[in-house]
């Protein structure tokens, strides 16, 4: 795989240096059959160092998950070797089955088949609250 030129796929750029493996796991990229390149500690004008992930497959990414992990990441969609779209992320208002409630008294803990729903309650602090019990979770990443 030539990591500089993907034909049809996705390039995640401006990942905070050192965080690419977390994203790899969160997006379940290990389950893909296609080629995936992880570039660690690439030089960046703005960030000093950054990580990049290149996926050689036109994957339909869950942008809410990615926005939750790190809303500074840019998502480049590559088609026929050219960038056709550049998406900027934002903190999602609602997360479904991305994070799970830790409150032992919460119904989602005893009934795990329920959708784990979190709502953004404080954008400045990146705080999400469980829709069921209102327990706050501060961003993990």
């Amino acid at each position, binding site marked *: 795989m030539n990591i500089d030129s993907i034909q049809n796929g996705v390039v995640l750029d401006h990942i905070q240096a050192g965080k690419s493996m977390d994203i790899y796991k969160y997006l379940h990229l290990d389950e893909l059959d296609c080629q995936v390149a992880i570039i660690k500690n690439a030089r960046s004008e703005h960030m000093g160092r950054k990580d990049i992930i290149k996926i050689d497959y036109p994957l339909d990414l869950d942008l809410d998950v990615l926005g939750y992990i790190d809303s500074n990441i840019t998502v480049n969609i590559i088609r026929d070797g050219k960038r056709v779209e550049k998406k900027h992320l934002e903190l999602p208002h609602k997360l479904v089955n991305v994070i799970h409630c830790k*409150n032992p*008294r919460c119904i*989602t803990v005893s009934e795990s*088949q329920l959708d784990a729903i979190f709502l953004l309650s404080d954008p400045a602090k990146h705080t999400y609250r469980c829709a069921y*019990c209102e327990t706050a979770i501060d961003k993990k990443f």
Partner: protein
Amino acid sequence: MPRNLIDIVDLSVEEINELIATAEDIIANPAKYQDACAHKQLATLFFEPSTRTRLSFESAMLGLGGSVLGFSSASSSSTAKGETVGDTIHTVSCYADIIAMRHPKEGAPLAAAQVADVPIINAGDGGHNHPTQTLTDLLTIHREKGRLDNFTIGFCGDLKFGRTVHSLVNALSRYSNINFVLISPLELKLPRYVKEEALKKKGIPYTQTTDLESVIPQLDILYMTRVQKERFFNEEDYLRLKDSYVLTPEKLVNAKSDLSILHPLPRVNEISVAVDKDPRAAYWRQVKNGKFIRMALIMKLLGIEV
């Protein structure tokens, strides 16, 4: 009007005022409402026992000419066999027109609302929400004072863990010119996030004190709660503090003649029985109001007008 009542904030001030107006009309003209819910069924699903709340709901539905079915503890329901809340609710919504549920797990009523095709009323989910208690408190204040604004209210006792206090402070913070006096031991102060969200952000004045007797003369309403022994780290602290938050006729000597004393009940010893005879004791009237506001709520959620 929302379909369900899960959290008191599901209701706007206008909707709360509408419910209070309906409850006041029910109190004034009970006969007018006696068949309002004829042929309708209320299911009271108490996955955790609470005789007081369950009887209030059942009495409310019977007062509207409806009927009731349900269970009063998890051991007598299929939850004991491992059924999910969702499946129980799905089954019951095949029979009932409306469901009032109490559950030990926080958020269980929201899980129920996701699958139910009839209205769900949260009758208490663990230590989380109990919106019909808050409606009861609001109706009681309205009946005692004739208004829901322009007064000084004292909250006394365990303000840290008392969910009825948090919920009522939140609800009252939407009305104007209310002065909050928070009376508790230092260990049991109102949590910072409640003060921040309900009071500070809205610029609402409040005072905090550990001394009930010094502030009692300024109060129009006194909302008492229980100081539970198990909330204290050591016996000594508990013994030192418990009597200072017990309301007695002596402590009421300097109180206003039109003070209203509320308590969500059940009480243990935080209001001496001698206070019951005082006309300012409103807590038994509060129990009655609980039935009337639930009648109003059941009608509204069923879309029934009289």
